[in-house]
């Protein structure tokens, strides 16, 4: 992919992000933060490439460490979001 196509993806994704995030209900802003946290750990992709590549031992170890850190975030982020979201319940059918 050349720079311009990457830039196009980026710019369009910023717009998508803008409209999607404004539609998030304020009550869910904390889960929003924890889930964005989890997904920004997609940086693990870069860490995996470094860890799997031959050629530089230090680069490999940095990659492995990054894989571990990002994994904390991926598993922790999604799990804590799921835990929070499970708590949001509607009123149980009895109104005064």
């Amino acid at each position, binding site marked *: *992919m050349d720079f311009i196509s*990457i830039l196009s*993806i980026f710019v369009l*994704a910023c717009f*998508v*992000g*803008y409209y999607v*995030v*404004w*539609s*998030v*209900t*304020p*009550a*869910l*802003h904390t*889960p*929003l*933060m*924890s*889930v*964005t*946290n989890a997904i*920004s750990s*997609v*940086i*693990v992709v*870069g860490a*995996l*490439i*470094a*860890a*799997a590549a*031959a*050629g530089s031992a230090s680069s*490999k170890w*940095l*990659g492995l460490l*990054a894989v*571990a*850190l990002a*994994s*904390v*975030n*991926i*598993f*922790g982020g*999604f*799990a*804590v979001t*799921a*835990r*929070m*979201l499970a*708590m*949001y*319940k*509607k*009123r149980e059918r009895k109104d*005064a």
Partner: protein
Amino acid sequence: MHEAAATPAWVLLAYLISGVCFILALRGLSSPTSSRRGNYIGMVGMAIAVGTTLVVHIPTIRITPIATPSITRTDWKILAEILVAIIIGGSIGLVTARKIQMTAMPQLVAAFHSLVGMAAVLVGAAAFLNPEAFGITAQIPAFHPSPTSGCCFTGIARGSRVEMGLGVAIGAITFSGSVIAFLKLNGNMSGKPILLPLRHFINLGTLAAILGLIAYFTQDQSPWVFFTVVGLSFAIGFLLIIPIGGADMPVVISMLNSYSGWAAAAMGFTLHNSAMIITGALVGSSGAILSYIMCRAMNRSFISVIAGGFGAVSIGGDAAAIDRPYKRGSAEDAAFLMKQADQVIIVPGYGMAVSQAQHALKEMADKLKTEGVRVKYAIHPVAGRMPGHMNVLLAEANVPYDEVFELEDINSEFAQTDVAFVIGANDVTNPAAKTDKSSPIYGMPVLDVEKARTVLFVKRSMGGVGYAGVDNELFYRDNTMMLLADAKKMVEEIVKALG
């Protein structure tokens, strides 16, 4: 370069799908019912991204070192090491996620941000040390072409250097900034702003140095340039957050959220990876919007929050007014008043989180409901230490989310409300924000609690002022009754008195 060009179409498609999954994950958060499904879609997106990467970059060993084409086999040792790293990290994450108390959510989010930042720095450093693996090398014309070394050498492509430099810089700022935010939120470090002399000068200087070095990095890819950028960025992250006080943390934490996204996006540019770019853009704009919402809710500009120091100097004139007469009530008085009411609106703030009063509060609300009282909750956007903090705590205590209202939706109702029950909130209820032009919080949107027939204000003591360092006019009004005690104890006593 060749590697990047040779990326099979299905791989690009897979990363695109994973990016779309992340969009859907955020989209799901528009309502609590769709949010759970959204979270699962997010997990699927992540699994696709990780799976694809592992398949494409499966570690290999050359069996025949020199022969071309070289014969390779899968390197199980490295694959096993990667899996071990995932398992170690994953279990730490899962255990933390399960054990963490809901009141500690802001700290946890700050800690998670720091990990994203650190991961970005590590990936950047790995790419710097082994650019071939990332397919970001190019033929760079040498400064002094010589017959021995030729006209060119193989180095990191210039454009990639900029992206890499920006990525590690933002990552490092995210890391050290989040560490400070974590320490402040977790109470390991005072929430008070720490003001260095000449701090604006130092900060702007460091920032300029970082940008200058990244520009220079395109001309000279020596390690010292790269690692100085990293070092200075760690320093600036630290310097930026120490002058910011505790109650401005909602802005800080949203801002760091945004940075972690931009760091991922910059890395995505370096690696030409659409999943990372899409995610980075989503997270970056999400954090930016949250920061904006938080700033608007405090009627302060983003620049003034980031400049820090708010709440460091208390307003001298008002502190002297502490001897003014006020009405003090007991738990029994409060119980009596609320039992008689048609409608009670509960206004929670950070104090509720500190004393963990949310469960007791729910019990009180249930008792009141059996007495035929309508109970609602009013949440100010900056109540607590992070966006949506109060909503999560109330959800934890099983308060149905359709009883919880945002400022704009409920503010008009205070006038028809019998009792406003303020627990652990202060500045967000201060009527001075509407009337007193000299007040530091003037213009900030506040909850109109004083319009209720009676205001019950739970507060530890009369001495302390809110975060903004201003006295609250509300305490001395005729229709206000102060309930001076620890929030949780007071609510428990009220529950007892309600019988």
